Protein backbone atom coordinates (compact mmCIF):
# COMPACT_ATOMS: atom_id res chain seq x y z
CA UNK A 1 0.00 0.00 0.00
CA UNK A 2 1.52 3.36 -0.96
CA UNK A 3 1.38 6.65 0.91
CA UNK A 4 -1.51 7.97 -1.17
CA UNK A 5 -3.75 5.03 -0.35
CA UNK A 6 -2.99 5.27 3.37
CA UNK A 7 -4.22 8.88 3.37
CA UNK A 8 -7.38 7.94 1.51
CA UNK A 9 -8.17 5.02 3.81
CA UNK A 10 -7.55 7.36 6.76
CA UNK A 11 -10.15 9.79 5.44
CA UNK A 12 -12.74 7.03 5.10
CA UNK A 13 -12.07 5.84 8.68
CA UNK A 14 -12.28 9.42 9.98
CA UNK A 15 -15.65 9.91 8.28
CA UNK A 16 -17.01 6.68 9.75
CA UNK A 17 -15.67 7.54 13.22
CA UNK A 18 -17.30 10.97 13.22
CA UNK A 19 -20.53 9.40 12.04
CA UNK A 20 -20.54 6.98 14.99
CA UNK A 21 -19.69 9.77 17.45
CA UNK A 22 -22.45 12.02 16.19
CA UNK A 23 -24.98 9.33 16.91
CA UNK A 24 -24.05 8.81 20.56
CA UNK A 25 -26.63 9.66 23.20
CA UNK A 26 -29.49 10.44 20.83
CA UNK A 27 -32.70 8.64 20.18
CA UNK A 28 -33.01 8.23 16.45
CA UNK A 29 -36.67 8.94 15.74
CA UNK A 30 -37.82 10.03 12.29
CA UNK A 31 -37.49 13.72 13.16
CA UNK A 32 -33.99 13.24 14.62
CA UNK A 33 -32.78 11.04 11.77
CA UNK A 34 -33.97 13.23 8.94
CA UNK A 35 -34.17 16.84 10.11
CA UNK A 36 -31.87 16.83 13.16
CA UNK A 37 -34.74 17.70 15.52
CA UNK A 38 -35.06 21.14 13.86
CA UNK A 39 -32.44 22.44 16.27
CA UNK A 40 -29.48 23.58 14.12
CA UNK A 41 -28.08 27.07 14.49
CA UNK A 42 -26.51 29.16 11.72
CA UNK A 43 -23.05 27.49 11.73
CA UNK A 44 -24.37 23.93 11.43
CA UNK A 45 -26.96 24.83 8.79
CA UNK A 46 -24.21 26.67 6.94
CA UNK A 47 -21.98 23.60 6.99
CA UNK A 48 -24.81 21.29 6.05
CA UNK A 49 -25.76 23.42 3.07
CA UNK A 50 -22.13 24.04 2.13
CA UNK A 51 -21.48 20.34 2.60
CA UNK A 52 -24.07 19.46 0.01
CA UNK A 53 -22.78 21.94 -2.49
CA UNK A 54 -19.03 21.41 -2.32
CA UNK A 55 -18.98 17.91 -3.61
CA UNK A 56 -17.02 15.85 -6.08
CA UNK A 57 -18.86 18.01 -8.54
CA UNK A 58 -16.85 21.06 -7.49
CA UNK A 59 -13.58 19.32 -6.75
CA UNK A 60 -13.20 17.14 -9.85
CA UNK A 61 -16.12 18.28 -12.01
CA UNK A 62 -15.44 22.02 -11.65
CA UNK A 63 -11.73 21.76 -12.36
CA UNK A 64 -12.40 19.27 -15.16
CA UNK A 65 -14.98 21.52 -16.79
CA UNK A 66 -12.59 24.50 -16.67
CA UNK A 67 -9.92 22.25 -18.17
CA UNK A 68 -12.14 20.82 -20.91
CA UNK A 69 -14.48 23.72 -21.72
CA UNK A 70 -12.85 26.88 -20.33
CA UNK A 71 -15.11 29.92 -19.89
CA UNK A 72 -18.46 28.07 -19.71
CA UNK A 73 -17.32 26.70 -16.33
CA UNK A 74 -17.97 30.13 -14.80
CA UNK A 75 -21.65 29.29 -14.75
CA UNK A 76 -20.91 27.32 -11.58
CA UNK A 77 -19.77 30.52 -9.82
CA UNK A 78 -22.91 32.37 -10.81
CA UNK A 79 -25.79 30.00 -10.28
CA UNK A 80 -25.20 29.23 -6.63
CA UNK A 81 -24.72 32.92 -5.85
CA UNK A 82 -28.12 33.69 -7.37
CA UNK A 83 -29.65 30.75 -5.53
CA UNK A 84 -28.39 32.10 -2.20
CA UNK A 85 -29.79 35.55 -2.93
CA UNK A 86 -33.12 33.92 -3.73
CA UNK A 87 -32.95 31.79 -0.58
CA UNK A 88 -33.37 34.88 1.57
CA UNK A 89 -36.92 35.25 0.28
CA UNK A 90 -37.86 31.74 -0.76
CA UNK A 91 -36.81 29.63 2.20
CA UNK A 92 -38.35 31.34 5.26
CA UNK A 93 -41.97 30.77 4.15
CA UNK A 94 -41.11 27.14 3.35
CA UNK A 95 -39.49 26.66 6.77
CA UNK A 96 -42.43 28.25 8.60
CA UNK A 97 -45.03 26.17 6.82
CA UNK A 98 -43.02 22.99 7.36
CA UNK A 99 -42.65 23.68 11.06
CA UNK A 100 -46.32 24.55 11.60
CA UNK A 101 -47.34 21.35 9.86
CA UNK A 102 -44.59 19.07 11.19
CA UNK A 103 -43.25 18.13 7.75
CA UNK A 104 -40.15 15.99 7.14
CA UNK A 105 -39.65 15.91 3.42
CA UNK A 106 -40.18 17.78 0.19
CA UNK A 107 -43.17 15.71 -1.01
CA UNK A 108 -44.85 16.33 2.38
CA UNK A 109 -44.80 20.01 1.49
CA UNK A 110 -46.56 19.54 -1.84
CA UNK A 111 -49.05 17.09 -0.32
CA UNK A 112 -50.10 19.56 2.34
CA UNK A 113 -50.09 22.66 0.14
CA UNK A 114 -52.10 21.09 -2.67
CA UNK A 115 -54.01 18.68 -0.45
CA UNK A 116 -53.09 15.79 -2.72
CA UNK A 117 -51.19 12.63 -1.65
CA UNK A 118 -50.76 11.60 -5.28
CA UNK A 119 -48.93 14.85 -6.04
CA UNK A 120 -46.59 13.85 -3.22
CA UNK A 121 -45.92 10.53 -4.95
CA UNK A 122 -45.15 12.37 -8.20
CA UNK A 123 -42.78 14.80 -6.45
CA UNK A 124 -41.03 11.92 -4.68
CA UNK A 125 -40.55 10.12 -7.98
CA UNK A 126 -39.09 13.21 -9.67
CA UNK A 127 -36.76 13.66 -6.70
CA UNK A 128 -35.54 10.07 -6.80
CA UNK A 129 -35.00 10.18 -10.57
CA UNK A 130 -32.98 13.40 -10.24
CA UNK A 131 -30.97 12.10 -7.27
CA UNK A 132 -29.67 9.04 -9.08
CA UNK A 133 -27.36 10.93 -11.50
CA UNK A 134 -26.25 13.08 -8.55
CA UNK A 135 -25.33 9.97 -6.57
CA UNK A 136 -23.73 8.40 -9.62
CA UNK A 137 -21.42 11.39 -10.01
CA UNK A 138 -20.27 11.09 -6.38
CA UNK A 139 -19.49 7.40 -6.83
CA UNK A 140 -17.80 8.13 -10.12
CA UNK A 141 -15.66 10.75 -8.36
CA UNK A 142 -14.76 8.26 -5.62
CA UNK A 143 -13.76 5.72 -8.22
CA UNK A 144 -11.54 8.23 -10.05
CA UNK A 145 -9.82 9.37 -6.85
CA UNK A 146 -9.08 5.90 -5.51
CA UNK A 147 -7.97 4.67 -8.90
CA UNK A 148 -5.66 7.56 -9.78
CA UNK A 149 -4.25 8.10 -6.29
CA UNK A 150 -3.74 4.37 -5.92
CA UNK A 151 -1.40 4.51 -8.94
CA UNK A 152 -3.22 1.59 -10.53
CA UNK A 153 -3.18 -0.68 -7.44
CA UNK A 154 -6.99 -0.66 -7.28
CA UNK A 155 -9.23 -0.89 -10.34
CA UNK A 156 -11.90 1.77 -10.74
CA UNK A 157 -14.59 -0.90 -10.46
CA UNK A 158 -13.37 -2.01 -7.02
CA UNK A 159 -12.90 1.64 -6.06
CA UNK A 160 -16.55 2.39 -6.83
CA UNK A 161 -17.63 -0.65 -4.77
CA UNK A 162 -15.45 0.37 -1.82
CA UNK A 163 -16.86 3.90 -1.89
CA UNK A 164 -20.44 2.65 -2.06
CA UNK A 165 -19.94 0.32 0.92
CA UNK A 166 -18.38 3.03 3.09
CA UNK A 167 -21.10 5.57 2.22
CA UNK A 168 -23.81 3.00 2.95
CA UNK A 169 -22.34 1.98 6.31
CA UNK A 170 -21.90 5.62 7.23
CA UNK A 171 -25.45 6.73 6.52
CA UNK A 172 -27.06 3.66 8.10
CA UNK A 173 -25.30 4.47 11.35
CA UNK A 174 -25.61 8.20 11.71
CA UNK A 175 -28.40 9.97 9.79
CA UNK A 176 -28.22 13.71 9.27
CA UNK A 177 -26.11 14.71 12.27
CA UNK A 178 -23.32 12.51 11.01
CA UNK A 179 -23.44 14.45 7.77
CA UNK A 180 -23.20 17.81 9.52
CA UNK A 181 -20.15 16.83 11.61
CA UNK A 182 -18.27 15.11 8.84
CA UNK A 183 -19.07 18.21 6.80
CA UNK A 184 -16.90 20.15 9.26
CA UNK A 185 -13.91 17.87 8.67
CA UNK A 186 -14.52 17.89 4.95
CA UNK A 187 -14.90 21.65 4.59
CA UNK A 188 -11.67 22.38 6.46
CA UNK A 189 -9.74 19.88 4.35
CA UNK A 190 -11.20 20.90 1.01
CA UNK A 191 -10.62 24.56 1.77
CA UNK A 192 -6.93 24.03 2.54
CA UNK A 193 -6.31 21.69 -0.38
CA UNK A 194 -8.13 23.71 -3.03
CA UNK A 195 -6.69 27.08 -2.03
CA UNK A 196 -3.21 25.57 -1.89
CA UNK A 197 -3.51 23.95 -5.32
CA UNK A 198 -5.16 27.00 -6.88
CA UNK A 199 -2.32 29.24 -5.71
CA UNK A 200 0.54 26.78 -6.21
CA UNK A 201 -0.10 25.48 -9.73
CA UNK A 202 -0.33 28.88 -11.52
CA UNK A 203 2.76 30.10 -9.63
CA UNK A 204 4.77 26.94 -10.10
CA UNK A 205 4.06 26.40 -13.79
CA UNK A 206 3.50 29.94 -15.08
CA UNK A 207 4.87 32.35 -12.50
CA UNK A 208 1.47 33.88 -11.77
CA UNK A 209 -2.21 34.15 -12.69
CA UNK A 210 -1.81 36.82 -15.34
CA UNK A 211 0.94 34.95 -17.17
CA UNK A 212 -1.05 31.72 -16.94
CA UNK A 213 -4.16 33.22 -18.55
CA UNK A 214 -1.97 34.99 -21.14
CA UNK A 215 -0.30 31.67 -22.03
CA UNK A 216 -3.69 29.97 -22.41
CA UNK A 217 -4.98 32.87 -24.52
CA UNK A 218 -1.93 32.59 -26.76
CA UNK A 219 -2.33 28.83 -27.19
CA UNK A 220 -6.15 28.76 -27.42
CA UNK A 221 -7.59 32.20 -28.20
CA UNK A 222 -10.97 32.81 -26.56
CA UNK A 223 -10.79 29.67 -24.39
CA UNK A 224 -11.25 31.59 -21.13
CA UNK A 225 -14.47 33.29 -22.22
CA UNK A 226 -17.70 31.99 -23.76
CA UNK A 227 -17.50 30.68 -27.35
CA UNK A 228 -19.69 32.08 -30.15
CA UNK A 229 -21.38 28.70 -30.67
CA UNK A 230 -22.23 25.70 -28.51
CA UNK A 231 -21.76 26.74 -24.88
CA UNK A 232 -22.43 30.35 -25.89
CA UNK A 233 -23.71 33.28 -23.87
CA UNK A 234 -27.24 32.01 -24.49
CA UNK A 235 -26.30 28.61 -23.08
CA UNK A 236 -24.58 30.28 -20.15
CA UNK A 237 -27.48 32.53 -19.21
CA UNK A 238 -30.13 29.82 -19.57
CA UNK A 239 -28.02 27.31 -17.63
CA UNK A 240 -27.38 29.76 -14.78
CA UNK A 241 -31.11 30.46 -14.59
CA UNK A 242 -32.12 26.78 -14.70
CA UNK A 243 -29.66 25.70 -12.03
CA UNK A 244 -30.29 28.73 -9.79
CA UNK A 245 -34.05 28.00 -9.78
CA UNK A 246 -33.42 24.31 -9.22
CA UNK A 247 -30.86 24.76 -6.46
CA UNK A 248 -33.23 24.31 -3.52
CA UNK A 249 -35.55 21.94 -5.38
CA UNK A 250 -33.26 18.99 -4.67
CA UNK A 251 -35.02 16.85 -2.10
CA UNK A 252 -31.98 16.89 0.21
CA UNK A 253 -31.45 20.66 -0.07
CA UNK A 254 -35.16 21.20 0.54
CA UNK A 255 -35.07 19.00 3.63
CA UNK A 256 -31.96 20.75 4.96
CA UNK A 257 -34.07 23.93 5.19
CA UNK A 258 -36.11 22.13 7.85
CA UNK A 259 -33.03 21.60 10.07
CA UNK A 260 -32.77 25.34 10.83
CA UNK A 261 -33.70 26.58 14.31
CA UNK A 262 -35.51 29.67 12.98
CA UNK A 263 -35.88 31.79 9.85
CA UNK A 264 -33.23 34.26 10.98
CA UNK A 265 -30.64 31.48 10.69
CA UNK A 266 -31.69 31.00 7.08
CA UNK A 267 -31.54 34.68 6.17
CA UNK A 268 -28.16 35.03 7.86
CA UNK A 269 -26.74 32.24 5.72
CA UNK A 270 -27.94 34.01 2.57
CA UNK A 271 -25.34 36.66 3.41
CA UNK A 272 -22.38 34.35 4.03
CA UNK A 273 -22.85 31.52 1.55
CA UNK A 274 -22.08 33.60 -1.58
CA UNK A 275 -18.58 34.35 -0.27
CA UNK A 276 -18.00 30.63 0.17
CA UNK A 277 -18.47 30.41 -3.60
CA UNK A 278 -15.05 31.93 -4.06
CA UNK A 279 -13.44 28.57 -3.27
CA UNK A 280 -14.56 27.66 -6.76
CA UNK A 281 -12.26 30.26 -8.18
CA UNK A 282 -9.26 28.27 -6.97
CA UNK A 283 -10.79 25.12 -8.41
CA UNK A 284 -10.94 26.86 -11.80
CA UNK A 285 -7.31 27.99 -11.48
CA UNK A 286 -6.34 24.34 -11.04
CA UNK A 287 -8.30 23.35 -14.14
CA UNK A 288 -6.81 26.17 -16.22
CA UNK A 289 -3.30 25.37 -15.02
CA UNK A 290 -3.80 21.81 -16.25
CA UNK A 291 -4.78 22.92 -19.78
CA UNK A 292 -1.22 23.30 -21.00
CA UNK A 293 0.44 20.91 -18.51
CA UNK A 294 -1.55 17.67 -18.92
CA UNK A 295 -3.12 18.15 -22.34
CA UNK A 296 -5.07 15.50 -24.20
CA UNK A 297 -7.77 14.39 -21.71
CA UNK A 298 -11.03 14.09 -23.64
CA UNK A 299 -14.71 13.32 -23.02
CA UNK A 300 -15.45 12.11 -19.49
CA UNK A 301 -11.70 11.98 -18.81
CA UNK A 302 -11.62 15.76 -18.33
CA UNK A 303 -12.63 14.99 -14.73
CA UNK A 304 -9.13 13.58 -14.18
CA UNK A 305 -7.41 16.95 -14.76
CA UNK A 306 -6.88 17.91 -11.10
CA UNK A 307 -5.54 14.54 -10.03
CA UNK A 308 -3.34 14.04 -13.09
CA UNK A 309 -1.72 17.43 -12.57
CA UNK A 310 -1.24 16.68 -8.84
CA UNK A 311 0.36 13.37 -9.67
CA UNK A 312 2.72 15.03 -12.14
CA UNK A 313 3.74 17.64 -9.57
CA UNK A 314 3.80 16.13 -6.09
CA UNK A 315 5.15 13.27 -3.97
CA UNK A 316 2.71 10.38 -3.40
CA UNK A 317 1.97 11.35 0.23
CA UNK A 318 0.70 14.76 -0.85
CA UNK A 319 -1.38 13.18 -3.61
CA UNK A 320 -2.77 11.05 -0.76
CA UNK A 321 -3.82 14.14 1.21
CA UNK A 322 -5.49 15.57 -1.90
CA UNK A 323 -7.19 12.24 -2.54
CA UNK A 324 -8.38 12.09 1.08
CA UNK A 325 -10.03 15.50 0.74
CA UNK A 326 -11.59 14.24 -2.46
CA UNK A 327 -12.94 11.14 -0.74
CA UNK A 328 -14.64 13.29 1.90
CA UNK A 329 -16.18 15.57 -0.76
CA UNK A 330 -17.79 12.51 -2.28
CA UNK A 331 -18.76 10.71 0.95
CA UNK A 332 -20.52 13.54 2.77
CA UNK A 333 -22.89 14.55 -0.03
CA UNK A 334 -23.11 10.95 -1.19
CA UNK A 335 -24.40 9.84 2.21
CA UNK A 336 -26.81 12.74 2.32
CA UNK A 337 -28.23 11.84 -1.09
CA UNK A 338 -28.47 8.17 -0.17
CA UNK A 339 -30.38 8.98 2.99
CA UNK A 340 -32.72 11.34 1.18
CA UNK A 341 -33.51 8.86 -1.57
CA UNK A 342 -34.15 6.06 0.95
CA UNK A 343 -36.36 8.27 3.11
CA UNK A 344 -38.34 9.37 0.06
CA UNK A 345 -38.94 5.77 -0.91
CA UNK A 346 -39.99 4.73 2.60
CA UNK A 347 -41.92 7.78 3.72
CA UNK A 348 -43.44 9.06 0.51
CA UNK A 349 -43.95 5.95 -1.58
CA UNK A 350 -44.17 2.93 0.75
CA UNK A 351 -46.19 4.74 3.39
CA UNK A 352 -48.74 6.09 0.91
CA UNK A 353 -49.63 2.54 -0.06
CA UNK A 354 -49.38 1.04 3.46
CA UNK A 355 -51.12 3.64 5.58
CA UNK A 356 -50.89 2.07 9.03
CA UNK A 357 -47.06 2.27 9.06
CA UNK A 358 -45.73 4.20 12.09
CA UNK A 359 -42.67 6.47 12.21
CA UNK A 360 -40.27 3.91 13.71
CA UNK A 361 -41.14 1.44 11.01
CA UNK A 362 -40.51 4.05 8.30
CA UNK A 363 -37.03 4.66 9.76
CA UNK A 364 -36.34 0.91 9.72
CA UNK A 365 -37.51 0.55 6.12
CA UNK A 366 -35.54 3.62 5.05
CA UNK A 367 -32.38 2.12 6.54
CA UNK A 368 -32.98 -1.14 4.72
CA UNK A 369 -33.44 0.76 1.46
CA UNK A 370 -30.10 2.59 1.73
CA UNK A 371 -28.06 -0.32 0.34
CA UNK A 372 -30.65 -0.89 -2.38
CA UNK A 373 -30.33 2.69 -3.63
CA UNK A 374 -26.54 2.41 -3.41
CA UNK A 375 -26.63 -0.72 -5.58
CA UNK A 376 -28.71 1.02 -8.24
CA UNK A 377 -26.23 3.91 -8.30
CA UNK A 378 -23.26 1.55 -8.52
CA UNK A 379 -24.90 -0.12 -11.49
CA UNK A 380 -25.31 3.19 -13.35
CA UNK A 381 -21.82 4.34 -12.33
CA UNK A 382 -20.21 1.27 -13.82
CA UNK A 383 -22.28 1.39 -17.01
CA UNK A 384 -22.30 5.15 -17.77
CA UNK A 385 -19.89 7.38 -19.67
CA UNK A 386 -20.89 11.01 -19.04
CA UNK A 387 -18.71 13.68 -17.47
CA UNK A 388 -19.51 14.85 -13.94
CA UNK A 389 -20.93 18.21 -15.00
CA UNK A 390 -23.10 16.55 -17.66
CA UNK A 391 -24.54 14.25 -14.97
CA UNK A 392 -25.35 17.10 -12.63
CA UNK A 393 -26.97 19.18 -15.37
CA UNK A 394 -29.19 16.20 -16.18
CA UNK A 395 -30.33 16.00 -12.56
CA UNK A 396 -30.96 19.74 -12.51
CA UNK A 397 -33.13 19.58 -15.62
CA UNK A 398 -35.40 17.14 -13.78
CA UNK A 399 -35.52 18.71 -10.37
CA UNK A 400 -36.09 22.30 -11.56
CA UNK A 401 -39.45 21.15 -12.95
CA UNK A 402 -40.76 21.33 -9.37
CA UNK A 403 -40.03 25.05 -9.11
CA UNK A 404 -43.16 26.59 -10.69
CA UNK A 405 -45.58 24.49 -8.62
CA UNK A 406 -43.63 25.24 -5.45
CA UNK A 407 -43.41 29.00 -5.90
CA UNK A 408 -47.07 29.30 -6.89
CA UNK A 409 -48.07 27.34 -3.79
CA UNK A 410 -46.37 30.00 -1.66
CA UNK A 411 -48.36 32.82 -3.20
CA UNK A 412 -51.02 34.12 -0.88
CA UNK A 413 -53.88 33.03 -3.06
CA UNK A 414 -52.94 29.42 -3.68
CA UNK A 415 -56.15 28.82 -5.62
CA UNK A 416 -54.27 30.21 -8.61
CA UNK A 417 -53.07 26.74 -9.35
CA UNK A 418 -55.05 23.55 -9.01
CA UNK A 419 -53.41 20.27 -8.02
CA UNK A 420 -54.17 18.89 -11.47
CA UNK A 421 -52.39 21.82 -13.10
CA UNK A 422 -49.36 21.44 -10.81
CA UNK A 423 -49.13 17.73 -11.62
CA UNK A 424 -49.65 18.25 -15.37
CA UNK A 425 -46.93 20.91 -15.49
CA UNK A 426 -44.42 18.73 -13.65
CA UNK A 427 -45.17 15.72 -15.86
CA UNK A 428 -44.92 17.79 -19.05
CA UNK A 429 -41.57 19.24 -17.98
CA UNK A 430 -40.10 15.90 -16.92
CA UNK A 431 -41.29 14.16 -20.09
CA UNK A 432 -39.67 16.90 -22.21
CA UNK A 433 -36.36 16.48 -20.35
CA UNK A 434 -36.49 12.70 -20.67
CA UNK A 435 -37.38 12.86 -24.37
CA UNK A 436 -34.47 15.18 -25.10
CA UNK A 437 -32.11 13.10 -22.97
CA UNK A 438 -33.07 9.68 -24.31
CA UNK A 439 -32.99 10.68 -27.96
CA UNK A 440 -29.75 12.63 -27.44
CA UNK A 441 -31.52 15.41 -29.27
CA UNK A 442 -30.82 19.05 -28.66
CA UNK A 443 -33.09 22.00 -29.28
CA UNK A 444 -31.23 22.40 -32.57
CA UNK A 445 -32.15 18.94 -33.90
CA UNK A 446 -35.73 19.12 -32.62
CA UNK A 447 -36.50 22.53 -34.10
CA UNK A 448 -34.04 23.17 -36.94
CA UNK A 449 -36.01 26.21 -38.08
CA UNK A 450 -35.36 28.25 -34.94
CA UNK A 451 -32.77 31.04 -34.94
CA UNK A 452 -29.27 30.01 -33.81
CA UNK A 453 -29.35 31.66 -30.39
CA UNK A 454 -32.48 29.85 -29.24
CA UNK A 455 -31.00 26.52 -30.26
CA UNK A 456 -28.21 27.02 -27.78
CA UNK A 457 -30.53 27.37 -24.79
CA UNK A 458 -30.20 24.71 -22.11
CA UNK A 459 -32.82 22.03 -22.85
CA UNK A 460 -33.93 22.12 -19.20
CA UNK A 461 -35.04 25.73 -19.59
CA UNK A 462 -37.11 24.80 -22.63
CA UNK A 463 -38.71 22.01 -20.60
CA UNK A 464 -39.41 24.52 -17.85
CA UNK A 465 -41.21 26.74 -20.36
CA UNK A 466 -43.32 23.76 -21.50
CA UNK A 467 -44.04 23.04 -17.84
CA UNK A 468 -45.29 26.58 -17.14
CA UNK A 469 -47.40 26.69 -20.33
CA UNK A 470 -49.13 23.42 -19.45
CA UNK A 471 -49.61 24.53 -15.85
CA UNK A 472 -51.25 27.80 -16.88
CA UNK A 473 -53.39 26.12 -19.55
CA UNK A 474 -54.72 23.40 -17.23
CA UNK A 475 -55.31 25.89 -14.44
CA UNK A 476 -57.13 28.22 -16.80
CA UNK A 477 -59.28 25.42 -18.17
CA UNK A 478 -60.20 24.32 -14.64
CA UNK A 479 -61.10 27.88 -13.71
CA UNK A 480 -63.32 28.24 -16.78
CA UNK A 481 -65.05 24.97 -15.96
CA UNK A 482 -65.79 26.00 -12.36
CA UNK A 483 -66.96 29.42 -13.50
CA UNK A 484 -69.35 27.79 -15.95
CA UNK A 485 -70.72 25.46 -13.28
CA UNK A 486 -71.16 28.39 -10.94
CA UNK A 487 -73.04 30.57 -13.47
CA UNK A 488 -75.15 27.53 -14.34
CA UNK A 489 -76.12 27.17 -10.68
CA UNK A 490 -76.91 30.89 -10.37
CA UNK A 491 -79.07 30.83 -13.46
CA UNK A 492 -81.11 27.94 -12.14
CA UNK A 493 -81.73 29.40 -8.70
Amino acid at each position, binding site marked *: MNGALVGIAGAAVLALGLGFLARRGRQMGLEQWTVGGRSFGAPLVFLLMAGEIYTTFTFLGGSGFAYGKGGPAYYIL*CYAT*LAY*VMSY*FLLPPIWRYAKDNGLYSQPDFFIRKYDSPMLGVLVALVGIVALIPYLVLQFKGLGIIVEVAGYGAISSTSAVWIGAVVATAYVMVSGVRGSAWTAVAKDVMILLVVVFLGVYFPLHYYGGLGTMFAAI*EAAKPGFT*VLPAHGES*VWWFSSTVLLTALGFYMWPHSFASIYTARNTRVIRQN*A*VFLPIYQLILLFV*FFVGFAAVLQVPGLKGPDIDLALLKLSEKTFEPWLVGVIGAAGVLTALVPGSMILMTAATLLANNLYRVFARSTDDMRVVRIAKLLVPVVALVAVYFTLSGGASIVALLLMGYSFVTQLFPALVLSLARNKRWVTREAAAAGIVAGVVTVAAVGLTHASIATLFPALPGEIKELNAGIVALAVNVIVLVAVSGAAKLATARVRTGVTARS
Partner: protein
Amino acid sequence: MRLVHLPALLPFLAMLVGPFFVNRVTPSILGMPFLLAWCVAWILLAAGIMAAIFRLDPANRDGAE
Protein backbone atom coordinates in the same frame (compact mmCIF):
# COMPACT_ATOMS: atom_id res chain seq x y z
CA MET B 1 -41.53 42.21 -1.06
CA ARG B 2 -40.47 45.46 0.61
CA LEU B 3 -38.60 48.33 -1.01
CA VAL B 4 -35.49 47.35 0.94
CA HIS B 5 -35.47 43.99 -0.86
CA LEU B 6 -35.22 45.46 -4.37
CA PRO B 7 -31.39 45.61 -4.64
CA ALA B 8 -31.46 41.80 -4.53
CA LEU B 9 -32.47 41.94 -8.21
CA LEU B 10 -29.11 43.45 -9.24
CA PRO B 11 -27.05 40.22 -9.05
CA PHE B 12 -29.64 38.54 -11.31
CA LEU B 13 -29.30 41.27 -13.92
CA ALA B 14 -25.52 41.17 -13.67
CA MET B 15 -25.21 37.40 -14.02
CA LEU B 16 -28.04 36.61 -16.46
CA VAL B 17 -27.92 39.67 -18.72
CA GLY B 18 -24.44 41.01 -17.98
CA PRO B 19 -22.48 38.25 -19.80
CA PHE B 20 -23.98 39.37 -23.12
CA PHE B 21 -22.02 42.60 -22.71
CA VAL B 22 -18.88 41.50 -20.85
CA ASN B 23 -17.95 38.28 -22.66
CA ARG B 24 -14.35 39.36 -23.29
CA VAL B 25 -10.82 38.49 -22.25
CA THR B 26 -9.50 42.06 -21.89
CA PRO B 27 -8.95 44.16 -19.88
CA SER B 28 -7.66 41.50 -17.52
CA ILE B 29 -8.20 42.27 -13.84
CA LEU B 30 -5.89 40.81 -11.18
CA GLY B 31 -4.67 38.49 -13.93
CA MET B 32 -8.14 37.13 -14.65
CA PRO B 33 -10.04 37.39 -17.94
CA PHE B 34 -12.63 40.16 -17.76
CA LEU B 35 -15.63 37.81 -17.79
CA LEU B 36 -14.27 35.84 -14.83
CA ALA B 37 -13.43 39.03 -12.93
CA TRP B 38 -17.00 40.22 -13.57
CA CYS B 39 -18.43 37.06 -12.01
CA VAL B 40 -16.11 37.32 -9.00
CA ALA B 41 -16.94 40.98 -8.47
CA TRP B 42 -20.65 40.20 -8.49
CA ILE B 43 -20.27 37.41 -5.95
CA LEU B 44 -18.71 39.92 -3.56
CA LEU B 45 -21.33 42.55 -4.43
CA ALA B 46 -24.12 40.00 -3.91
CA ALA B 47 -22.80 39.22 -0.43
CA GLY B 48 -22.55 42.95 0.33
CA ILE B 49 -26.07 43.61 -0.92
CA MET B 50 -27.49 40.73 1.13
CA ALA B 51 -25.63 41.95 4.22
CA ALA B 52 -27.17 45.40 3.80
CA ILE B 53 -30.63 43.93 3.27
CA PHE B 54 -30.21 41.70 6.32
CA ARG B 55 -29.39 44.71 8.49
CA LEU B 56 -32.19 46.92 7.21
CA ASP B 57 -34.93 44.29 7.02
CA PRO B 58 -37.32 44.63 9.99
CA ALA B 59 -37.82 40.84 9.88
CA ASN B 60 -34.38 40.40 11.47
CA ARG B 61 -34.88 42.70 14.46
CA ASP B 62 -34.42 41.12 17.86
CA GLY B 63 -37.54 39.36 18.98
CA ALA B 64 -38.74 38.54 15.48
CA GLU B 65 -38.87 34.79 14.94
